[in-house]
């Protein structure tokens, strides 16, 4: 059997480490693991899990690109690239007509506008407050005693949108507790939370100018309720991704790995 020339993209985020293995432009393996405290170890673990998924070993890897906040501690990588550039490449790979990316990750959220070639034309980032991040939603899920994955489907069964005014994690948590104590239905509060976040991040997205097609990436993109709230708040239609949107950064990193290897750098 001829040897596979494979490329890896490792996206070490604050909550999850996402890894993608590619060969000849196709995704042949991937893994999403929970990020632990040792940044470097997360990268290695993610890489090993994705290689196992692809049925390959480290010897098959020609080039590795690390991204995400953990990229600063990635001795396994040949190159590091920011998550902004990687998300752009990843979204373009998944949906080539993408012009705007809304990325909601574990600890920040970004709006990225792309040119026709899938390169970054402009971006804005919010990492000063937790609004619009996986961490915020995780805290909220705890209040409702449900898993993060259940938040989105629950919100779709809401009968009304209860206004939640705070997007500060601490205040939103106490506001939610008060609403529950008042006897409000959890699903109505959850949809209110999604709407509050959409409004909060809407200003940032309009600063880069939202253009169609809009791609929603990052772990929060799996939340159908958040997606619906964003569509309503920003008056946009978000494309249906043909790949897991949480993998977008890692896919972009793998795409960059392949082209860097071909360019000999």
């Amino acid at each position, binding site marked *: 059997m001829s040897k596979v020339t494979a490329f890896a993209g490792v996206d070490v985020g604050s909550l999850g480490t996402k890894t993608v293995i590619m060969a000849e432009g196709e995704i042949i393996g991937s893994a999403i693991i929970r990020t632990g405290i040792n940044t470097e170890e997360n990268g290695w673990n993610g890489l090993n899990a994705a290689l196992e998924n692809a049925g390959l070993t480290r010897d098959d890897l020609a080039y590795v690109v690390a991204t995400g906040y953990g990229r600063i501690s990635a001795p396994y990588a040949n190159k590091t690239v920011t998550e*902004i550039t990687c998300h752009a490449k990843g979204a373009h790979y998944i949906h080539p007509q993408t012009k705007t990316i809304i990325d909601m990750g574990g600890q920040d959220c970004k709006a990225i506008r792309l040119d026709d070639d899938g390169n970054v034309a402009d971006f804005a980032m919010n990492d000063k407050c937790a609004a619009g991040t996986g961490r915020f939603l995780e805290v909220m899920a705890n209040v409702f005693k449900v898993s993060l994955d259940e938040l989105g489907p629950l919100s779709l069964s809401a009968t009304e949108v209860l206004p939640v005014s705070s997007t500060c994690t601490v205040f939103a948590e106490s506001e939610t507790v008060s609403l529950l104590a008042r006897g409000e239905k959890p699903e109505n509060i959850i949809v209110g939370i999604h709407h509050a976040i959409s409004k909060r991040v809407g200003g940032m997205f309009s600063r880069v100018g939202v253009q169609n097609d809009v791609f929603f990436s990052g772990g929060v993109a799996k939340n159908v309720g958040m997606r619906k709230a964003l569509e309503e708040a920003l008056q946009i239609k978000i494309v249906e991704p043909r790949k897991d949107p949480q993998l977008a950064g890692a896919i972009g990193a793998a795409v960059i790995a392949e082209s860097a290897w071909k360019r000999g750098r």
Partner: protein
Amino acid sequence: MTLQSVELIRKRVAERPAELAEARTNGQKVVGWQGYNLPEELIYALGLIPVRIGAGGDDRLVEIGARYISTKNCVYVRETVGLFAENKDPIVQNTDFLAFDATCLQTYRTAEILEYYFNKEVVVLGVPRNFYWPEAQVYFTKEVEHFTGRLEELSGARLDHDKLAETIELYNRIRGAIVEIYEYQAERERLISWEETYDIIHAGYVLDRKEYLRMLEGTLRELQEAQGRPAPEEEDEARIFISGSVIPPGDKKLIHIINAVGGRIVGDDLWSGLIPYLDVHIGENTVEGVALAYINRTPHGALPYLELETDKRIKRLKELVKNYKAHGVIYHTLRYCDPYSFKAKETKDVLAAEGIPLLEIHTEYSGSDYEAIRTRIEAFVEMLKIRNFETLRN
């Protein structure tokens, strides 16, 4: 490799406080000044020693300053107040009195605070909001005349016409030399970096002005001699222009980050950088001539836009970006620096129309946002490099 003349300039800056102390024991007076529209020539021509004060990048001093000035003031003025409150800075310690202008109301407020809490004698120069009206020119001329009168009172000297003419000549030559050095730092040969040029500018805040001119001319000679050195590969270069709020001596965060992620700074229009030295055309060697020349320079960001399309500051920014062949602009805004923060979006839009990308970095002097800023700047540098690569390929 650092030029010998640059090393000498740095050495002389370190030796300067002792010289100022000695000059004061010999009866000379040192004037600490701050403000964009304050004509330093007038201080010098009166036989006073001008030193431009203000520093950045020290969160500890910002905290000390905030005991006297509101935390809603920008970190730069808070640190300036901190310098006086702590009173350990050897330049600040050696000032006899102060001169501030009211271009930015926050520096004006600093002057009030320094008078109120630290009993400093501060001469304040009023500045009109709209520079383009004839009435504003009359007002500013009167203000500069009044300012000169106050300096005369405090120094006990009278402004002498010949001394003013000689001073204007000296300052014109300083400005000319700085502009020439700026051209060199943007060249491919990299005989001198922007960072070194920036240090040279800051050296001029404290050094004796005649010696400073000699040193600038020495740097220019060294640069001329070094010409012809092979230029480094141009591939993979992201040439960055810096605009926005002041980046005073000591504030290295943004500069370090740009360098760390592979960007190359090739120009600026900062108040603490090149812009005060540009477009100073003094017609008559009189106080009025100096006042009119200052009012006709590129205005500071604290002064309102009148018409976005014809605004001199935006126009000059576009020209400088092109002159230094920058690929993009990093627009630096300090927290609570309203003059520059408020104008970020429109500056971005105007430049975008010319195909010049702009990244706004909003920061202060603490190090807590270092990684967040690094990610943004790194992504911006990646974006510029990819653009350049695509342009070269097509």
